[in-house]
Structure formats: C-alpha cells, structure tokens
C-alpha cells in the first residue's frame, strides 16, 4: 500500500512539473545581440562609458508576462575601449575580477505594469555584495529568428551607487553614481 502511495505521489509531481513547463517558457539571453552599458562621471567633467561583453542568462515568461529574470555577467569582460583602463577596472581598485568574477541579477518578484512594461525586484550581486534592486523592464518588440525561434527584446535602465557595493576607491575622480543600460534579446526554445 505504501509503495502504491509513493508511485501516485511521484506521478502527481511529474504531472505538475510538466504542466509547469507548458505554461511557463524559458528564454535564453542571446549574448551577441544583448548589451550592458555603464556610464560614470570622470573627474566631475565628462561621462565615461563602458560595456560588458560577456553576459548570459534567461528570462521566464508566462504567456506575455515576464515572470523571472536571471542574468550573469562576466566581470572581466569589461570594455571601455582602452585596454589599460580595462586592466585597471579589473584590478583590486574596482571590480577585482579575480576575486569576484561574476556580476549577477536574480529576480525575486516581477510585477506587470502594462502590456509591455514590468518591474523586476531582485538581488544584484556586484563585487561580492548582494543588494536588492528594483528595475523597470520594457519589452521593445518580438520577432522570429532565421531558425524559427521566437525572439523578444527588453530594455532597462537604472542607477546605482558603486560605493553601496563596496567599490569605494577613487571616489574623488570617478563618480559614485553609475547608470546602467541593459538591452536584452531573448530567444525561446534554447
């Protein structure tokens, strides 16, 4: 009798899992067509821009609604167009990429604000410090790639203080406020 009960429980669990898979889709971030830019003040004068070249992750959706965001960025892919400056950014003065190789965002809650806009609350881990952040996510469009996979694009822009994440060096010259602009292209079925 016990064995039959166990079998039924397993069957119910598998069925529930398969139902979940059907109703919630997972989309992979296409790193070639996705971008993360950052902007920071330099010596109080100009805005210096940079990007991260290596990101990956996935979005989960339920129908039209985004239900989860999970992004991983390789910190040593930082690129400001100047190899020496990139080296400095990777060093212990800033990202310390040997100790903190990844920057991650993992949503804990996604709220639908409108047809194409969402608010994702989650944990951002940068320089080994995890802090909750809330970001707005706008769906920029949908399409189909040559392989027939459904595509969707999302934009987000938000600011943070690097000192909140323990990156407090050279605050006199390099600004504390960092603007991040994220553009993701996600492909279903990968």
């Amino acid at each position, binding site marked *: 009798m016990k064995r039959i009960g166990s079998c039924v429980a397993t069957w119910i669990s598998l069925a529930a899992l398969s139902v979940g898979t059907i109703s919630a889709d997972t989309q992979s971030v296409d790193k070639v067509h996705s971008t993360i830019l950052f902007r920071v003040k330099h010596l109080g004068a100009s805005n210096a821009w940079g990007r991260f070249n290596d990101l990956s992750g996935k979005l989960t959706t339920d129908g039209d609604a985004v239900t989860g965001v999970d992004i991983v960025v390789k910190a040593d892919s930082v690129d400001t167009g100047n190899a*020496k*400056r990139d080296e400095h950014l990777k*060093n*212990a*003065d800033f990202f*310390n990429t040997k100790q903190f*190789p990844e920057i991650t965002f993992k949503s804990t809650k996604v709220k639908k604000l409108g047809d194409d806009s969402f608010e994702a609350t989650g944990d951002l881990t940068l320089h080994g410090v995890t802090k909750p952040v809330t970001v707005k996510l706008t769906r920029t469009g949908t399409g189909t790639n040559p392989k027939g996979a459904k595509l969707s694009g999302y934009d987000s822009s938000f600011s943070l203080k690097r000192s909140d994440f*323990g990156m407090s060096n050279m605050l006199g010259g390099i600004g504390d406020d960092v603007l991040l602009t994220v553009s993701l292209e996600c492909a279903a079925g990968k």
Partner: protein
Amino acid sequence: MFTPRDVIFGAAVPALVGLVILLAAWRPWRAAGSAPRGLDWGGPLALCAGFLAGYAGIFSRPPFPPLDSVDWLFYLTIPLAVAALAVNTKDRALWLVGIAVIMEGLSSGLLTLPLWQHTWSPVQGAAWVGGLEPLAAVTVLVLSAVARQSKGLPLPVAYLVLGGLAALTLLLSGSQKLGQLGGALAAALGPVLLLAWWSGRPFLSRGASLTLAILYLGLLAAGHFYASLTPLNGALLAAAPLAAGVGLLPPLRRLRPLFTEALQALSVLAPAIVAVALAAIEFRKNTWE
C-alpha cells in the same frame, strides 16, 4: 588624482603616528643613560600603527571579514605586531624564521583565498604560498642581519627610498590603492629607520624586520595577484631588500664600512629603480586617467 586627504593620511599621518610611538618607546628626554632599547619594540609597533592609521585614514576601516582579500592586510597587521614583539624576546635565528614562516603563511593564505577558490589548482596555490614563505624568512634574516651590521646612514635611507619606489611601482602597475598603502608603509618606516640610526640602535630590530618584510611582500603579492605588477617587477622589488646582503659577504666586510654601506645601498636601489622605470614605460604607453 590624489586629494589632500590622500596625502595627509597616506604620508603625514603614518609618519607622525610612527614618530609618536617611537618617542614614547624611547623617551629620549629621560635622564642620560636611559638606553634607547625601547626602539626595538617601538619599531614594529610604529610600523603597524602607522600603516593602520594610513590605511584607515585613506580607505576607512574595512569590514571584517574583508570584502576584498587585499584588505586582509589591514587585519593582518594586528597579529603581526604581536608576532613582532614575540620575535624580539629571543635572539635566535630559528625563532625568527619560524615566526616569519607562520606569518607569511597567514598573510599569503588570506590574500590568495579567492584565487584558491576561483583560479588556482591546489598545486599552483601550494607552489605560490610555499615559495613566498622561504622568501619571507630569508628577507627577515637579511634585513635584521644588515641592520645590525650597519652603522651609517646610506642603508637606512636606501630602504626608505626603496619603500617609496615600491609604492610608485605599484601605483604605476594599475592600483592606486596598493600604491597608497605602499606609501603609508614607507612613511611609517621613515621615523623607525631614522630614529634607530640616530640613537645608535640597529636601524631595524628583528621585530621591525619581520613587520616590514611581511607587509612589503604582502603588498607585492597583492600587486601581482590583484593588479598588474609584472612578474619581473615583482621579482626585482622582492630581491631589492635582499641585495643589501652583499655586505655580509666576507670580501666586502673587509672594506671600509662607509664604502660597503654605499655599495649595499646601491644594490638595494638598483633593482627598484629598474622596476619603476619598466612600470613607468608601460604606464606611459597608454595613459588613460
């Protein structure tokens, strides 16, 4: 990119804190006959306190446990001060070597913890830490031996300049933080060397040699692992304090003391000057700030 605060806490405060501790340890205003032996234990305390004051003044006290492993240097200074005082209690080379190996193991182990987790194989990690330990032991032995032998000013001044050159090399190797910490260490070293020389004591006691060697090698290791200090520049700077050991060789010991000491001073400075020059050439290839 240095603020007045950086200059005050990176140079003036470490030197001042070191000076106050040394004067309190020596108490030269006491009646004649009071031996300046207090400088022997005052030296390592002045180095540690000056370095800590500079560190906290420029960067504020890091959290415990530190976020960046480089910041272990801050907390390492406390057991290092205790170890330095313990070293001074016995005049035995084995005692000095044993404590140096333990402190270097602690220092390099803490500094490289993330590399063990993310980058190194166990063999690589063991090779690095195992290599740094004998280097630290030899550095401590050479520093304390040449300090006992030295009577003139050239060698203490050479070590002081070496501290400044090492800080400059770290700065040019992509880490303002490590450069400033190197500067704070050099600033704290200034009164230690000069007061000891002035009082006729060895310019570095065994405890001060230990403190200096562990912090100096810690900064170089951090510069290589977490900044862009090249292996060649790291090796040149690590070899520089050892180069004064030429003065311990029998042929040179027979020369006039001032000549020997000048030669030792040049031996200390030459590799450091080469390191700074190489780092400066690399830096100038592509200035970005």
